[in-house]
């Protein structure tokens, strides 16, 4: 093994340090560029085939939360988010009740007792050409 002069040793070490710094720096750059921001809140929900929801059915969709109605007039949906402060209302006899502050709504979503002042929102339901239902919450 040839003798390594002091100058060559310093040169080699410096190169190694710079290479390591460069690699780490590149890693940090990739990490920065690859940062996943929070996805925007979902506003469209694929409910599957419309045929899964027979006429006169009322289907609770707890994950949205919403109630899907299928009548002779077609599909419609109602938000189950309380219009007072946003808690999820619960289905009760002849309507809905908010477990947080006690607002009550009738089966059509109209306010029976406060503190909510607005009725439950109506949501748009779209049927795709291939027969699927898409619920829009925006």
């Amino acid at each position, binding site marked *: 093994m040839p003798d390594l002069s002091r100058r060559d040793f*310093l040169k080699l070490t*410096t190169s190694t*340090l*710079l290479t390591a710094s460069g690699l780490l720096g590149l890693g940090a750059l990739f990490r920065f560029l690859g940062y996943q921001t*929070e996805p925007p809140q979902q506003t469209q929900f694929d409910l599957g085939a419309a045929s899964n929801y027979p006429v006169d059915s009322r289907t609770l969709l707890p994950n949205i939360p919403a109630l899907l109605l299928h009548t002779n007039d077609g599909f419609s949906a109602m938000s189950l988010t309380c219009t007072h*402060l946003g808690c999820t209302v619960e289905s009760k006899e002849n309507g809905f009740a908010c*477990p*947080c502050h*006690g607002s009550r709504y009738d089966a059509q979503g109209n306010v029976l007792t406060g503190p909510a002042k607005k009725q439950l929102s109506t949501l748009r339901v779209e049927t795709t050409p291939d027969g699927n239902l898409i619920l829009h919450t925006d």
Partner: protein
Amino acid sequence: MYRRLLFIGSTLLLVVILVAWQQSSRTPNPIALIPTLTGETEYCTTCHAELPEISKSHPLQTFGCVSCHGGERLALDADLAHSSMRGGANPSDLSVVEMSCGGSNCHSGSEAENRDHIQRVMTSVQSTYTGAITSIRFTFGAQTDLIPQFGTSAITDEKTQTGITALAAFDAATETNPMVQKFGENCLTCHINAVPREGDVYARQTGCAACHSTEKHTLTTAIPYKQCNACHNRGNYDLGLMTFVERTDQPATRIDDYYQPIAQFTQCEYTLDCVDCHTRSEVMGDGDLHANQKSIQYVQCQTCHGTLTELPQTKTITDPNDIALRMAFLNPVLDLKVGDTILVTEKGEPLWNTRVLPDGTYELIGKATSQRFDFRPVMGSACEQKPDEQGSQYCHACHAVER
């Protein structure tokens, strides 16, 4: 020389990058929460997932943390995340309560709908402490009458029903009488926004949480007497020394724990909890500035029991928005419904945890204990109370518990 500088520089660069990398790798992976109320991502639960839900009325998925606590919602560094929190860990401290708990849909709503909680608390004697301040200043000649001039902080009441339109902030440093100064130094720990005295028996938070938070990160309307006793019944003020003298007895029974051994009480006064009888306007205020505790506290034995000649006042609930139903919803110790008849106070406040029974007697459900108590009116009983002696002190003469 150049090579040496290059060597040192490259070493430093590597060290800096390694330190930055290590710091970055110590940052926890964020856990996102998007509360329904705000729709904005917050990372607080990355570190605070273990906290209990604060109350049924404030679910985490709806409120998140930031709408009440403030703070930097996307920060993962503890110091940064907490840097802009309101009231430290207690957003209900009265200095920040309007920002934290206020809003027309929350606790500074309309007076007509009984949703003006913050305005009422801010003007309540528990907050202003004006009765004590006025009394001391009058006693030691700092003012010539008992008309309230000062509270613990400046407050106005533009719609006053009591004639008290404003209180200035009491500042002991500007007082000239040494006893009033000493009062300011030693005797201001009882109002609800004061930092309590040291010791487990005095432990409470400030603001709304002084009464409504009985355990860590919880809010409740089922307030046991022990919470009230963090301030009340803990000792006495020695006006000679102008200092607080802690009680030293070792209570072995509930009545002795409840009250100091200095007065007479009937069984219901210590079997029940304070909030079973005392109403929200007595405790939280009625929106007006009052001169002292006596001016706002009015419930007595006869409120529930009536007198020899009169039954207690009652009311049948007909409005589904009745505040009695709201109160029963928040603390469902009884299934109160439209059509039920409840007792009401002389001022018309609902005693929503009571109900008139078909046989003309009454039931009361303990708000903190859920315990049921049956009781009857004085009218028709063997009571020999004189018509002009209807106050509670006369009830105590016969019904006080021996101790």
